[in-house]
């Protein structure tokens, strides 16, 4: 699953824009992922300018996007 290194996040919203599941929540001061919706597609990880996300082993219950 996708881990967030919150201390590195600049709250810019680039990841939110590419997330196909619309499951990243970005308030004025915090970023969080709704993990029950996230498909581990890793687009947020690849798009983030500051390398905030880290992909750690695939979860078993996740539907893989087409």
């Amino acid at each position: 699953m996708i881990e967030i290194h919150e201390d590195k996040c600049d709250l810019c919203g680039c990841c939110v824009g590419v997330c196909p599941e619309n499951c990243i929540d970005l308030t004025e001061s915090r970023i969080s992922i709704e993990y029950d919706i996230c498909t581990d597609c890793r687009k947020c990880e690849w798009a983030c300018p500051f390398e905030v996300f880290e992909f750690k082993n695939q979860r078993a219950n996740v539907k893989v996007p087409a």
Partner: protein
Amino acid sequence: MKDSYDVVVVGGGPAGTTAARFAAMGGADVLVLEKDREIGVPVRCGEAVDHEGIIEFIQPDKKFVAAEIRNFKLVAPDGTVVKPLIEGVGYVLDRRVFDYELARLAADEGAEIVTKAYVDSVTRNNGRVDGVTVQYKGDRIRLKSKIVIGADGVESRVGRWAGMNTTVSMHDMESAAQVTAANVNVEDDTCLFYFGEKYAPGGYLWVFPKGNRTANIGLAVAADQSRKKHALKFLEEFMEKKFPDASVLSKLAGGVPCAETLEEVSMPGLMLVGDAAHQVNPVSGGGIISGMIAGKMAGKVAADVVKKNDMSLLRDYDQEWQKSLGARHHRYYKIKKVIYKFRDNDLNSIAAAMSKLPESEQTLGALFKQAVIKHPTLIVDVMKLFFS
């Protein structure tokens, strides 16, 4: 804050406050909700605009103009510098003050602006958007409105909550990093652009002066190419090499949706403006002016819908956008696709050919012509561009 408005605008950037300003001017009761604690902060922008673009909305003023731009320099991957002749003048803004001023103009027309208000969903009734829910001062409040205007930037969720597909593809999202740095040796009237794989694959690097030896230095990489090396790494390497003595005053991340213009920018009860509607120029990544232009259109139409109590008029916004800037962005998007095929050696040979021309002939038009002459295979793409 009341519990019901004619128009609720989500996001207090240039697109949102301009929409609010013109909706309020047209007589609508308008509320702007901004999640940050302050309008204009943080700045996530290179801050460059052209004079012609902003005068429709606000008179350039030294309190928000940091530098006046009269020259461009384009640097090819091999270091060849091309200085195309440009007409007119541009500015590097201080957006902190600029965004503030735009918000003030909206407030002067009667729009209410609330900060630290985070919108977390839109509400719907019979397929029509009829309000939002907002987290404010520890409460979650339901606000009703005749029209919601989603001006929530690159991170926009408003359209998606309502069922519109506004996700940006990895190919079209530009993943960006920028520093504002001091003690940099730059010409105060010249914007520099660097192109090539080593600077910013699928994007470009910019150095925009802000006066007193300071500058915005940033770059954007196509998100589908930033996987191996992220934007910040590219930028750190560039700074190390070109400006080792610079002091970094601020460092920011960002995303620019350089996408094809959306087919629909409204649905019943909802309009999208600015980055939220992918209204950025897909070639340059500039979105301040086009967001304001769309904001004005949307604000005026919203006021009209309210006044005449006729929701079908909302489509006027779609029509106006599509026939003006929308059509232009559609063409730009095709140009972008052609440009993205250029590799470093293509860029080098275009720059070499340009620099052989007499100075008076080094125009942007000539640059484009060189691109076509040097790369006959691209002619097919360009033909498609002009005849489709």
